[in-house]
Every structure is written in C-alpha cells, then in structure tokens.
C-alpha cells in the first residue's frame, strides 16, 4: 500500500489521498501510427474520474491498455495499481484485480437470461456443474443494487438498452469490481436512463467505488466527475480538479480542441462554386432493427457544383446513416424525404439508381464495406462500373488493366502492380484504390465518409489534393469527417450534425473549432436537457 500525496496542482492545496491507479508515460504505437504518447493518468480512490477528448484522441486505447486487451509488452510505460506495478496479459488478469471495463458496444448474448449473461465466463459452482440456484440468487441481489426490478430469469433481448447497460454494471459488480471503467455509457441511452445511470455512479461513489468514465457529453461529466483528464492527439493535455478549477463546458472544449492549425491543407485556387447540384429536404430514417429509433431526423441540406461541403459531428451523430440512406437506401428503414439532383426530384431506391444519377458514396469502413481485400487492385477499381469495361457483359480484361493503371498513376497509389491484392496495401493506398473505384464510376456528386481515417499524414495530404481536384473539375464533394481541423481546412461550407439532426450551418470564414464543438455539445444539452445548470439540477432534485 502506498500513501501518495496528491499532486500539487499549482494552486496550493496539497491533499493527502490514496492513489488507486497510476498510469505512467504510456506510449502505444500501431504499425505506422503513434496512438498514445507519454500519457499519464492518476486516479484517486473513491473518485469519479472523467476522460475526455475528441474522436481518436486515444481514450479507448488507453483503457484497453489498462484492461489488458493490449497486453503487457505491447506498450511502453508502467501501470501502477494499488501500489504494485502490474503486467496484465489478458483481460482476466486485470479483472482479478478488480479492474472491470464496460465497453461502449454492449456485449450481451440476446437469447440468454440476465443471470447467464452476468456470469458468462465466470460461472458459479463447481467446474463440472453450474450452481444455477446460486447464479440466479446472486444475480438478483446485484440487480437490486443497480436498481433493476427485473427477474434475472428474463432474456436479455426482452429488456431495453438502458436496462442492458445496468446489467453490464451489475455484471461488473459481480466480478467484485474496485475500479469501474465505463466507455460512453450513455451513448445509446435516453434521457431518463442516462440520469438513472449517473445517479447510480454517484451512489457507488459514496460506497467507496472508484470509476473512470469516458464520455462526449460534457454536461454529464460536469455533473458527476471529480476530476477530468483531457486527452488530445494521444497526449495528456491537462487534468482539471473540481475542487480547484472552475469546470465549465467551454473550459473543457478549449482543452479538447486547442490545437495549432498548421498548414496541413493544400490551397485551392479559383474556387468556382456553380449552380445547385443536390438538395435534400426533410430527410428521415429509422434504425433497421429498432424501428422506433429515429437515426436521421428531419435533415435538410444542399450542395452546389464545385463545392466542398463538410459535415461534422461526433461519432454516432447520424452522418454515415444520412449518407447511406440517401445512397440508394443502403441503410435504414422507413426512409422519407425528397432528393433533388440538378433541380429534378429523383427516387433513389437502390444503389444502382443512385449510381445512375451520378452519385457516389465512399464508405468510412473501407475494409468492411468498401474493398474486396482478397482481390487485386484492378478488380476493385472497376467493380462499381463494370459496364464501362465490358461489351455485352463480356469483360475486356486488357481495358480493365489499362483503367486500373490509369487511376494508379493519377492517384499515385503505391503498389507493385495493379494485380496486387488490396489486402496487402497500406491504409492510405487502400483508400486511394477506393477513391479510384468511385472516380471511375464518374459521379457528379461524391460523398466521402471519413476519407482520411487511419492513414498517415502524407497520404492525407494527397487525398486532400484529390478532393480539391475533383471540386475544380466541377464535381460536388460532400466530406463527412470527425476531424475538425480537416473539415475547417477543406470545406467551403460546413454543416454540423448531432443526434440525427442538423444543428448548425456555418461558412468556412466564420468557422472555428470552438464554435463547432460548442454547437455540438450545447445542442446535446438542448435536446437532452437532463441535467442543465446546477440551479436547475437542484430544482429537479427538490421536485423528486
């Protein structure tokens, strides 16, 4: 046991408190990318510690390092937990010490009961016989602790997502958690469920539980957190302490986005924005499985010829869903709204029709939805426009080869030849092949969904050049991106989306990172309004 003095935060006030967890100089690299560099995190026993940062700031990676998903040896730096240096090789190692992580995507088996899910991989009883009485009995006890009235015999599929989240917490408790890590716990919850969950965390805190919470919802964080550590681009920026600093959303936003904007974007010359290319009005789409969950809600936007339009927002804002539901209804159910292309109303009921109207959608998930990894570059390049290289359905392979080479040269794709399988290319080059494919389909309007995700700086620059060239050719480019600097650096006009709605439109001249972030995070508050200002909170609590 180590009684460490809490750090001197520069404003006096040295408090003695036990440090439960200390992560020291954590550095983690994936091939080619440094995701974490020298990250430090100190968590005191019995506090709620929030971890905030933009998408890709490294929050989830840090927690994966802590829980042993990225095993000891795959990162640099030390994890000191409960006074000991720990080497976690598997998730089990960290769980045995009481560190339990609850991931953003719920990992439950729908056709098993609550109790079976809670003890999956951790079954009660002897090795060869599960003690079902103990399992269900214990499960019921933990369910009560988290405030669920359901019987532990209920199937997971029969309870709401909010309750499933609570079951996850009950599961963590059943593992005798001492340090609870919640990754975006309220991302898929409605107002009431989110509130209940946060209250539960506060209740646990009183009982001595330590929690780390990752969240984008700053109002929630401001409500529960004792300390807030801000990550940006894989580095710790600062740690705010409730007792010392004034925690406001603007203060947190400043820490999250306060990045120097260097000249990382190619200049565009003679921007000629022409007539209207596409208008979308009152667009609605529902989740394909949960038919009452509206993913895109009453969205309207337009794009002109030669324009680069940015759509930004946090993950899960509904941007991809918006784009895919427009692109031949390839996502969602009960889609409604109107699309006009060059002033004429069109019905895009299939991807084929969308391509026919000269629309292209370059997916954010190039491996899952974009490319056939086991096939060569040339086959991937021509897949969306086989008509152009075939005569009466018979493919002219020589022509195909020529087309693939033409685009390889145009986009400077690095490969041994166009016969190379795309699975063997780097992320940036895969992205170029994906772009080739859609450029070869000769669209007028291109929707690029996270066009530079997971690729290195050099390749990013080249992709930006390609985007500018497309716009200069008079095409309309809609760029969906979570990286604010990219949206700011590239777009002529920016839309901001949150929770399925368009919450703002801003011209490139006016836009700043702070304005956009504030727009997103404050719309959160308007739509949810769960906690509001401290005064409102007090009122609410009185009301109860």
């Amino acid at each position, binding site marked *: 046991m180590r009684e460490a003095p809490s750090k001197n935060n520069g404003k006096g006030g040295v408090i003695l408190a036990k440090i439960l967890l200390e992560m020291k100089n954590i550095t983690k690299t994936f091939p080619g990318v440094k995701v974490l560099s020298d990250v430090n995190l100190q968590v005191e026993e019995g506090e709620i510690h929030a971890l905030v940062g933009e998408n890709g700031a490294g929050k989830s990676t840090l927690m994966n390092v802590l829980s042993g998903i990225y095993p000891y040896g795959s990162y640099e730096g030390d994890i000191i937990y409960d006074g000991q240096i720990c080497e976690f090789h598997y998730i089990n190692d960290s769980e045995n010490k009481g560190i339990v992580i609850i991931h953003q995507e719920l990992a439950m088996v729908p056709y098993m009961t609550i109790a079976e899910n809670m003890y999956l991989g951790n079954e009660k009883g002897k090795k060869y016989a599960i003690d079902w009485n103990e399992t269900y009995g214990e499960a019921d006890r933990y369910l009560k602790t988290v405030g669920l009235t359901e019987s532990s015999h209920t199937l997971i599929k029969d309870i709401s997502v909010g309750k499933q989240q609570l079951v996850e917490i009950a599961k963590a408790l059943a593992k005798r958690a001492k340090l609870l890590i919640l990754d975006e716990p309220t991302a898929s919850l409605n107002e009431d469920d989110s509130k209940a969950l946060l209250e539960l965390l506060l209740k646990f805190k009183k009982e001595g539980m330590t929690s780390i919470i990752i969240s984008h919802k700053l109002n929630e964080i401001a409500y529960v957190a004792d300390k807030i550590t801000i990550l940006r681009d894989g580095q710790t920026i600062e740690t705010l302490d409730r007792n010392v600093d004034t925690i406001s959303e603007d203060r947190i936003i400043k820490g999250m986005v306060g990045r120097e904007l260097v000249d990382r974007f190619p200049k565009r010359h003679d921007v000629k924005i022409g007539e209207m290319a596409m208008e979308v009005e009152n667009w609605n789409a529902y989740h394909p499985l949960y038919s009452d969950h509206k993913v895109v809600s009453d969205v309207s936007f337009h794009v002109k010829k030669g324009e680069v339009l940015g759509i930004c927002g946090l993950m899960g804002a509904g941007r991809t869903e918006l784009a895919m539901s427009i692109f031949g209804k390839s996502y969602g159910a009960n889609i409604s709204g109107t699309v006009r292309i060059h002033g004429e109303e069109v019905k895009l009921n299939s991807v084929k029709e969308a391509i026919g109207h000269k629309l292209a959608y370059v997916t954010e998930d190039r491996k899952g939805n974009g490319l056939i990894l086991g*096939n060569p570059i040339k086959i991937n390049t021509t897949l969306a426009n086989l008509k152009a290289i075939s005569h009466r359905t018979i*493919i002219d392979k020589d022509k195909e080869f020529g087309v693939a080479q033409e685009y390889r040269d145009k986009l400077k794709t690095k490969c041994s030849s166009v016969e190379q399988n795309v699975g063997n290319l780097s992320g940036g080059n895969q992205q170029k092949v994906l772009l080739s494919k859609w450029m070869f389909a000769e669209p007028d309007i291109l929707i690029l969904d996270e066009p530079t995700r997971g690729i290195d700086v050099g390749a990013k620059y080249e992709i930006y050049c390609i985007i500018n060239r497309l716009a200069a050719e008079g095409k309309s480019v809609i760029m969906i991106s979570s990286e604010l600097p990219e949206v700011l650096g590239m777009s002529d006009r920016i839309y901001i989306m949150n929770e399925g709605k368009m919450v703002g439109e801003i011209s490139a001249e006016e836009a700043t990172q702070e304005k956009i972030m504030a727009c997103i995070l404050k719309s959160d508050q308007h739509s949810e309004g769960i906690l509001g200002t401290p005064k409102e909170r007090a009122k609410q609590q009185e009301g109860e």
Partner: protein
Amino acid sequence: MKNKFKFSEGLKKYTMVIVLAFVVILFTVNTGGKMLLPQNVNNLIAQNAYVFILATGMLFCILTGGNIDLSVGSLVCFIGAIGGTMMITFGINPYVSLLAMAIIGVLAGAWQGFWIAYVRIPPFIVTLAGMLMFRGLSNVVLQGMTLSPIPNPFLSLFNSYVPDIFGMEGFNLTCFLIGIIACLGFFVMELLGRRRRQQKGYHVDPLLGTIIKLSLISIVILAFMYKLAMYKGIPNALIWVTVVIGIYSYITSKTTTGRYFYAVGGNEKATRLSGIDTNKVYFLAYLNMGFLAAVAGMITVARLNSANPTAGNNYEMDAIGACFIGGASAYGGTGTVPGVIVGATLMGVLNLGMSIMGVDQNLQKVVKGAVLMAAVIFDVVSKRKSFIAKQ
C-alpha cells in the same frame, strides 16, 4: 531471390495438379499399369461425368460465400424419375422429356434460390429440406420401383461414342485428330492473345514459361485422346462435360456475371454498395445448380439405363468435395472452374485406382475423407502465418 519466390508461388498454385500427377503415377505403378489401360481411362470419364457437371454448378454456390447445395443428389434422382416416367410409363418423346427434365431442374433451383436469396433462409437448411423432399418425391413418382430400359434415342445422346469417320481397325483416328486439332487451336489462341497483349503494352508471362505450360497441357490432352482412341473413341458424355466446363469457365473468367459471384463471396457489403444486386447473384447460383443437376440427372439415367429411387445417392458430397479439393475457398470468393476439374479428376482417379487395386470400400471412404480434409487444411493454413488460429 525473386525467382525462388516465384517458384514457391507456382508450387502453391499448382499443388493439386502436382498431387494429381503423383497419385496417377502411384496407382499406375501399384496396379502394374492397369490404371492407364484405355478402358479404364474411358471409365474415368463415363463414371465421373456427373461429378464434373455438379461440381461446376456447386462452385458457383461456394463462390458466394462457402454456401453448399445438399439437395443435388436427390434432385438428380428426382429429375431421372420424372424423365424415366415420362419416357417409359407414358411413352412420351425422349426429346420432349429431355426438355421437361431441364425445365423441372430450373424450377427446383428457382424454388430453393428464392428462399435462400430473397428470404435469406440459410442455404444449409433450404437444401437439407430439398434433399429430403426431392428424395421422397422420387420415390413417390417411381412408386418405389425401378423403370428400365430407357429408349434408345435418349441413351445414344449420352451413352454412345462419337462415330469414327475413318474406320481404322483398333484405333479411332477421328478421336485422335480432334485431340490434335484441340491442342493446335489452344496453342494458336494462347499465343495470339499473348501477342495482342504485348502489342498493347500489357504485362505478359515469359514466352518460355508459356510454351512449357502449353506443351505440358497438350501432352496430357494428346495422351488422353490416344488412350480413348485405343478404346472406342470419344464418349458422348465427354462432349457434354466439355461443353459445360467450357461455358462455365468462360462465364467465371470473362463475364460481368461471373465477376459478381467472386465479388459477393469476397465482400458482400462492398458489392451491394457498388450497385450490384446481391440477392440476384445468390438466386442465380441456386437456379443454375438446379439446371446442372438436371443435366447430371440425364447423364445418370442414361448411364444406369434406368430410373431408380436410389440413384444420385451422395452425389452432393462428391461435388462439394471436388470443389474444395480443387481450391475453392470454404469462405467463398475464390475458386476456378479448371481448379474444380482438377479436384473432380483427383477424386475420380482415387476411386478408380483404389477399385482396381481392390481396396476395401470402407477404406476408400477413409482415404477420400482424408484427402478432402488435407486439401482444406492446406487452403486455410497457407493463407495465414501460423498453424493455430489466433483468437
């Protein structure tokens, strides 16, 4: 260094061809040359014609994502039962019956294809149900009895030999000449194609390698035709098989439709987002399987000279096995018609060789099972670095 790399690549590409050659030599030695007697070479075709045809159809199902069709054996039997009943019980014209058999095959394929492609019932379930249903229906149609003999016009379509126009004693010159013409045509086409590509400035394989490859294939074709000529010439079944293989290998390698099958198996979501109707691709795979099952049904009825309710037993397993041995991926997206032919031939050679050697029937199954297993293990493991799968 570069050459060495290419050598091992080539080894991987032609593994099954090498295995096939090795197995043929092994059996030839062990049977004291009986293996390559003209009659046995002829039997290899006659006995395995159905495998070649069914395996070609099965390849399209497997390409879409490792999906198999369990119903083909029963469907072969059902088609035969229909044909037999029409021709023998009702005395309907054999050619009309032939057409009816083909139509019923397509309808059966469309039935299964509809459930698989548009309702997305797992192919395993749909075709398992089909396997039971068509087997049962065959018994119902035939009332549990065997119908024979099949009328002559039908038999001669599938069962006889291409007539010899020279009439030489003991040697069918027509057969051998066709072999020579085939080889010459093959050579000319390949070399012309190569020159055309070269003129357009595209990459071509080295001339020496191409000539060696062409020569080896020609030698095999010539030796094969020579053996057939020593017996009764070209069996009609070989013509059917060649036509089917020719058409389908053209479809897979040269047409957009063929490309769709590979794309769906490689990444269905990406294919759908490229504007391709993936449901239709699944539907076509099973529709076509029904049609080819009908062709195999015709060949089987002719070969057995009867329609009986146990025909076609386990045919689906032969077809599936041939595809996987021939290098089709169990996950879909890869596999070629020539590969499947090699796989089917290997199965056929194993059957024939072991039968000649008098290996016990049960042991034969063990050997075939082991070969199938080894082929798929090789396919799966050679694609990743470690033998044991990472979690």
